[in-house]
């Protein structure tokens, strides 16, 4: 194999020496790697916060602060994909990573003027910055939605968060006070209007230790503005505070007639009433609906008007006029039946305690009363405003069966007091109109004139009579003359008495005379008289 060409191949020996020049790049590479590692190790946490606008944000300039200590810087400001909002990318110091909780809040601090005062004036010179309010939950979050305004309460504040449900009334605003007997104990954090339910929800925060004041029997009411109450005791003007007059407010308390109840420790929803007096009025009760077919006018009857039994409220008017389909059983059009169907709720809970309210037994008793003569009538609730109410009372004719009108049972009705009084007044006015008043007045005038003349005559007569009586008074000469005459007549009659006696004893002595009988005079005493 090796005969043709005996060629010896060269022995190649590798040069194993490395040029010293390579030391420098290697050292440089090692230094660079160390720097990269150090940079990586000290690099902050990058988060992104979305805002509606970039007002006050500037890349590289706007800082992120916590308790006014700079903990990061805005690196990027740009739009989202749909350009609906802006995104600010922020690098937070690594040591501040623990502040990035899922419920941490960010907002841009800029000058603001509102009902709560003026804030952020310092940013006029220094420029705006992003404020961080760390959350309280566990975990790490890097994607946040920034607040457009500062949070009313810090997320980590100690207290109680509640939700109030209001069906209307005076509006409230974020930051409005929550007071307990005039003392500010919390604020309204947020508000939301539910379009579906058409009610407003207010998130409130009550700071510790005043959260202990909220119990299961606590009621909340809107204390906004002035409250003027006029009743038999006079006019009462109440104002929770000047602040509540400007920006509204909420007040809460436990009604004096109720116990404190259980303490509330977690978020719950309470009803927000227009006033403390309206708690009982607007409280939601279990109810049964009835119809009252009214013959009177329902002008002045409104939804929410009271239904009373002998002055005790037992229900509420739901609809002053209920239009039902005439095809329903018992429903007729207004031409056939001119009575106005008024829908009312009978609410036993208004009369009995929650524990004692037995709806079925109450309704059974009510319907039994209807059969025995319980009837509804429209009466005046307020003579000043002309508002009406439905009044239940006995006095109607008993019935054998309750009337049905559509799906509703009908409470028998009778003419109300107002209508009855109006009718009586009308009858009285008709009677008065039919009276011959003109003739009567003319006669009366003539009689008065005659009586006046008569009185004048009597007056003159009285004067004359007084003059006459003065003439016959004991001191008057006429009286004395008369008295003297009478005395003389008495004396004369006494003198005639012997003559009368003689004539009676001797009638003929008048003609023939009679021998005079001398008086028997007293005789002298045998003993003689004294000197």
């Amino acid at each position, binding site marked *: 194999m090796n005969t043709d060409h005996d060629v010896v191949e060269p022995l190649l020996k590798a040069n194993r020496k490395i040029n010293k020049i390579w030391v420098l790049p290697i050292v440089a590479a090692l230094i660079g790697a160390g720097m990269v590692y150090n940079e990586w190790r000290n690099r902050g946490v990058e988060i992104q916060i979305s805002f509606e606008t970039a007002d006050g944000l500037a890349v590289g300039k706007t800082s992120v602060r916590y308790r006014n200590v700079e903990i990061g810087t805005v690196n990027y400001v740009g739009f989202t994909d749909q350009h609906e909002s802006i995104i600010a990318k922020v690098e937070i110091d690594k040591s501040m990573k623990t502040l990035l909780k899922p419920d941490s809040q960010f907002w841009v601090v800029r000058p603001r003027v509102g009902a709560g005062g003026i804030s952020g004036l310092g940013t006029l010179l220094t420029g705006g910055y992003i404020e961080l309010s760390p959350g309280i939950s566990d975990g790490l979050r890097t994607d946040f939605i920034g607040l457009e305004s500062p949070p009313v309460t810090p997320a980590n504040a100690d207290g109680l968060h509640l939700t109030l449900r209001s069906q209307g009334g005076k509006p409230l605003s974020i930051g409005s006070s929550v007071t307990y007997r005039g003392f500010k104990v919390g604020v309204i954090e947020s508000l939301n209007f539910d379009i579906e339910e058409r009610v407003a929800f207010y998130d409130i925060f009550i700071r510790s230790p005043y959260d202990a004041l909220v119990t299961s029997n606590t009621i909340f009411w809107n204390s906004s503005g002035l409250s003027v109450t006029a009743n038999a005791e006079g006019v009462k003007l109440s104002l929770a505070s000047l602040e509540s007059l400007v920006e509204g407010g909420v007040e809460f308390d436990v009604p004096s007639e109720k116990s404190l109840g259980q303490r509330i420790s977690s978020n719950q929803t309470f009803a927000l009433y227009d006033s403390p007096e309206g708690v009982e009025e607007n409280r939601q009760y279990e109810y049964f609906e009835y119809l009252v077919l009214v013959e009177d006018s329902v002008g002045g009857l409104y939804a929410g008007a009271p239904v009373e039994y002998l002055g005790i409220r037992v229900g509420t008017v739901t609809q002053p006029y209920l239009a039902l389909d005439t095809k329903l059983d018992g429903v007729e059009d207004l031409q056939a039946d001119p009575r106005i169907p008024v829908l009312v709720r009978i609410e036993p809970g208004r009369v009995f305690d929650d524990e004692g309210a037995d709806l079925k037994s109450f309704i059974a008793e009510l319907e039994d009363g209807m059969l025995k003569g319980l009837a509804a009538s429209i009466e005046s609730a307020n003579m000043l405003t002309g508002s009406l109410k439905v009044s239940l009372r006995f006095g109607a004719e008993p019935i054998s069966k309750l009337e049905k009108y559509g799906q509703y049972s009908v409470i028998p009705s009778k003419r109300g007091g107002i209508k009855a009084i109006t009718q009586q007044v009308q009858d009285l006015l008709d009677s008065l109109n039919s009276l011959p008043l003109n003739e009567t007045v003319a006669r009366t005038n003539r009689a008065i004139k005659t009586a006046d003349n008569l009185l004048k005559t009597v007056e003159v007569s009285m004067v004359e009579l007084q003059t006459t009586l003065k003439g016959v008074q004991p001191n008057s000469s006429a009286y004395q003359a008369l008295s003297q005459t009478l*005395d003389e007549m*008495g*004396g004369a009659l*006494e*003198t005639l008495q*012997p003559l009368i006696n003689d004539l009676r004893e001797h009638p003929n002595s008048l*003609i*023939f*005379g*009679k*021998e*005079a*009988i*001398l*008086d*028997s*005079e*007293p*005789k*002298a*005493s*045998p*003993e*003689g*008289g*004294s000197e």
Partner: protein
Amino acid sequence: MKYRNFILLSLCCLLSACASTAKTVPHTKTYVLDSDQLSPYSNANSREIAIQLNSVRVANYIDRKALITRISTQQVTVARYHVWGEKLPALIHRALKDELNRSGSNALFVDRCQSCVSVSVTVDHFYPTDKGKVVFAGSYTIHQNNKANTTVPFLYEDNLAEDGYQESVYRLRGLLIRLASNLVTILEV
């Protein structure tokens, strides 16, 4: 003719009555209780005390025009021709007031005065009797301000020295003087 004779006869009868003489009728005598002395009271203007003498009340059986005489315990007779010159209460009042003013020297007895002591006299008996006596009895009452009234009965009698009502009235007047003296003593005036 027949009637003419009858009329003439009647006129003759009447004419015969005119011819009859009247029987002897005594004159009626009138009496008063005046005092013997009709001179004014002495120092009447200087008396400091005034006492009111009220009207005298007289029992009805003696309050008459004619004088009476008691002829037995339960019977009186009324004179026909002897009468009082005035109502008896007025006569007694005037006579008693006259004697009181003459008896007292410090007080003036008047018919009416203000806020003064007053004296009322009631007369039950004031007549002569057929036994030769005159009787004056009754009571007097002294009314003093702020004090209880004081009523005192009195009875005065006297004998008649002569017959007749003249003497009786004179003696009755004497009994009035005795009552006046008694009152002045009682009133200390």
